[in-house]
């Protein structure tokens, strides 16, 4: 990496996209966790209701 200053490697648009994509990737990861909680919660609820004989 020697000899290549940071500002030469990344343009302003690239830094912006890095920040933007980092936020988007974090949001995607959070969405994944929420989706897992929602779906598994729903699966367990439906299984439990069936086990209780409610439908």
């Amino acid at each position, binding site marked *: 990496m020697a000899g*290549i200053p940071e500002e030469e490697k990344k343009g302003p648009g690239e830094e912006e*996209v890095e920040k933007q994509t980092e936020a988007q990737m974090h949001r*995607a990861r959070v969405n994944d966790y929420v989706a897992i909680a*929602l779906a598994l919660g729903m699966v367990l609820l439906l299984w439990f209701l069936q086990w209780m004989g409610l439908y």
Partner: protein
Amino acid sequence: MTKKSSMWSTLPGFRESLPGLLALIIIGIFCELPGLPWPITVHNLLHYIDQVLPPIYGEGLFTDLLHFNYVVISLGVGILIRNVVGVPRSWEKGLSYYSVFLHAGIIMLGSQYLLRDMVKLGTLTIIIMVVFVFGSAALLIFLGRLLKLNDSLSGILAAGFSMCGVTAAVATAPMIRAKSEQLAYAIAATVSFGIFCLIGLPYLGRLFGISQYSFGVISATAVPNSAQVIATGYMYGFEAGKVAGFVNIGRIVLIPAGALFIYFTAMTREVLGGEKLNIWQTVKERFPIYVLGFVVVWAANCFHFFPKPAVFAMNKVMIWFFTLSFVGLGLQTKLSDIRKAGIRGAIVGYLAGSIKLVLAVVVIVILMKHGYME
């Protein structure tokens, strides 16, 4: 610790998301959520119109000839509202939850499969999917070089068109030094190409008499965006949607490998300036965790953990989640994106996407004719 708190801060708060979420649910109810005792739905209205109008060749216009099912209706209503009436700004935060509903629906899709479905899918389908992912990425990079496109733009278009559209483009962008306008451009190009697939592919499938199973494989191979893959599949039929969702899981898992492939093939040494990439970190950061949820539900179903009535109810709830996500997708689809995609990059993307689509149809029709595929 700081990393974790910043990750959760990207999720919009409940109060600011409420208008959009309520809009999704209310529009979803009017489109039709199965099992919900609510008669005033667009689906029932179209059914009524079909009964009032004189039949065409003995069939109803909307339900039989145009095959307007819950996917077409929820997407169509969403697109209509967005592009005719417009969507208030206050809805935007809540609408961004559409991918949560989509992923929740994909996880619940696991309850509809058994081990024999995986065996039925077979190695052939998996090989087709892998070849099409890497082949179309290589083709797009080659076409990009031919038309003298910028390396980063070719790379990001390759990510969007060869894998899962928006998610793959976002995952690959920082690795290949894409600029924000290039990312926006690639997203617009893949989403707009997906709109054409969504509208045209089911009719093409019926024209060629493609089976439900094969159409599911075609959707998951040729359509770029995950949401559009599943929507295209379910537009054709329930079985096609199921297969499309299952094959698409494999494509989602390939995102880290695909991103690395694009990094090593699209980027020239001059652009990278001797930069080293941490491969393990790249794979870890880009692996879509929700696939594990699908595997858990699928494994539980393989061991017959869920009784039949529960599996039936899960199917209904899965359709609710998909309906909400398709309404959200429709409400976020700006038809002006097709214009925004511009010309040169769109030519490369559309050309590679069309070649991939035609090849997928030809390969699968040949395999169907020779009895290698259902």
